[in-house]
């Protein structure tokens, strides 16, 4: 803001000087110039020694006075204040020692626990968000898997249809063959019937003929002929008997 004030105050006289003043004071503007993205927080705070004195003091004094420099400075200061009675030892000093001990002991004993508790609050927040994100990711992965499975199933549908088509064709074929069989059987039956009829006719004719012939023959045999034939038969039989007797004796 001061740079703007400077710029405005000098603007009337010389624009070149005002611009250079703004540029010069840019090095003093240490906060970030943009609002987003938010700069990340450092993981750890500034390093301190003995809980109070920043490490920068030790590093600042190290080139000139080495490691013991800051300690000598501190001791010297305290001794100076005490000896010149700039700091007077009174009852508050005793109380200061007392409360200092209590504070240091409290921080040393419970510091880590409190820090861990506070960190756990933050971690719970992160864990909740992470859990929500993870569950969502796993849900989506599962959905992808299911979709792929469905696509694979769809491929198999063709095979299913082929099999069904085959089935239907086989059924039709079977049905056709059955009907053909039936037709053949029926035709054969009819033809068999005709044949049987013809056989029957032939047989009847034959029997009729035989009966007629026999009747005629029997009616044509006179009694004289019958006696002659019977006598001849008896004579033939006697002859036969003699020949067999002779064969048997021989």
């Amino acid at each position, binding site marked *: 803001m001061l740079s703007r004030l400077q710029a405005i105050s000098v603007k009337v006289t010389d624009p070149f000087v005002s611009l250079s003043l703004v540029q010069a004071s840019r090095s003093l503007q240490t906060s970030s110039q943009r609002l987003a993205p938010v700069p990340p927080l450092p993981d750890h705070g500034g390093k301190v020694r003995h809980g109070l004195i920043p490490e920068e003091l030790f590093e600042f004094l190290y080139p000139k006075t080495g490691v013991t420099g800051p300690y000598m400075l501190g001791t010297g200061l305290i001794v100076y204040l005490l000896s010149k009675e700039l700091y007077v030892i009174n009852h508050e000093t*005793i*109380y200061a020692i007392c*409360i200092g001990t*209590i504070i240091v002991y409290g921080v040393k004993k419970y510091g880590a626990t409190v820090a861990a508790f506070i960190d756990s*609050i*933050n971690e719970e927040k992160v864990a909740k968000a992470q859990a929500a994100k993870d569950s969502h990711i796993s849900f989506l992965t599962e959905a992808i898997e299911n979709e792929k499975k469905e696509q694979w199933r769809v491929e198999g549908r063709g095979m299913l249809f082929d099999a069904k088509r085959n089935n239907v064709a086989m059924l039709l074929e079977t049905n056709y063959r059955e009907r053909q069989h039936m037709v053949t059987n029926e035709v054969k039956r009819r033809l068999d019937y005709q044949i049987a009829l013809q056989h029957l006719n032939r047989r009847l004719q034959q029997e009729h003929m035989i009966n007629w012939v026999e009747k005629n023959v029997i009616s044509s045999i006179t009694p004289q002929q019958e006696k002659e034939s019977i006598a001849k038969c008896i004579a033939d039989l006697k002859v036969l008997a003699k020949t067999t007797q002779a064969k048997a004796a021989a």
Partner: protein
Amino acid sequence: MTLSLFDQFLSPVVCWIPLVAIAIILPWILFPSPTTRWLNNRSLTSQNWFLSQATSQIFSPINPPGHKWALLLSSLLIFLATMNTAGLLPYTFTPTSQLSINMGLAGALWMGVVILGMRTQPTHSLGHLLPEGAPALLTPILVIIETISLFIRPIALGVRLTANLTAGHLLIQLTSTATLAMLTIMPVTAIFTGILLFLLALLEAAVALIQAYVFVLLLSLYLQENV
């Protein structure tokens, strides 16, 4: 500089410039304001956690119209707790050990609560002057007693805080003076007095936080009655 016993209760002045304003504003700069970040550093996280716990605990028994007082009472709690505990450090001035500040807070807040009650629900507020379940004969006496207790409340609130802190600080001063005086003459007794000083300092730390909480709790109770 040599200190008398009551130097700590004097309003601090440097070259006639009063520093009491700085002493009262101190709690404001000790607590960072919440940022727009989702995850904060430890101090801000702990501050947020503590405030949310304290506010939810104090305001859970109060009806919803009383929740408008949440900001006032929670900031009062932080204010008093910080000033009390900051006064435990040596060479500090505790503003809450002064009757002026405590009576100012107590009187104004108590009166606000009572006037709120009387304006929004006068019958209900006046009904508190007669406790439930009291025998009918005692009604006149009870009403007078309850009225007196109602008007004593701001004085009690302010004086309780002042007296606790002043007495504690004074005891610490006395004990540490005794320890210092006896350190050269009777070291063993000085050690015992030193142990007493330790315990007293612990007690004072507890009292500092408890008194701040009690102040705010009582105000929330008066609010609960009247809202």
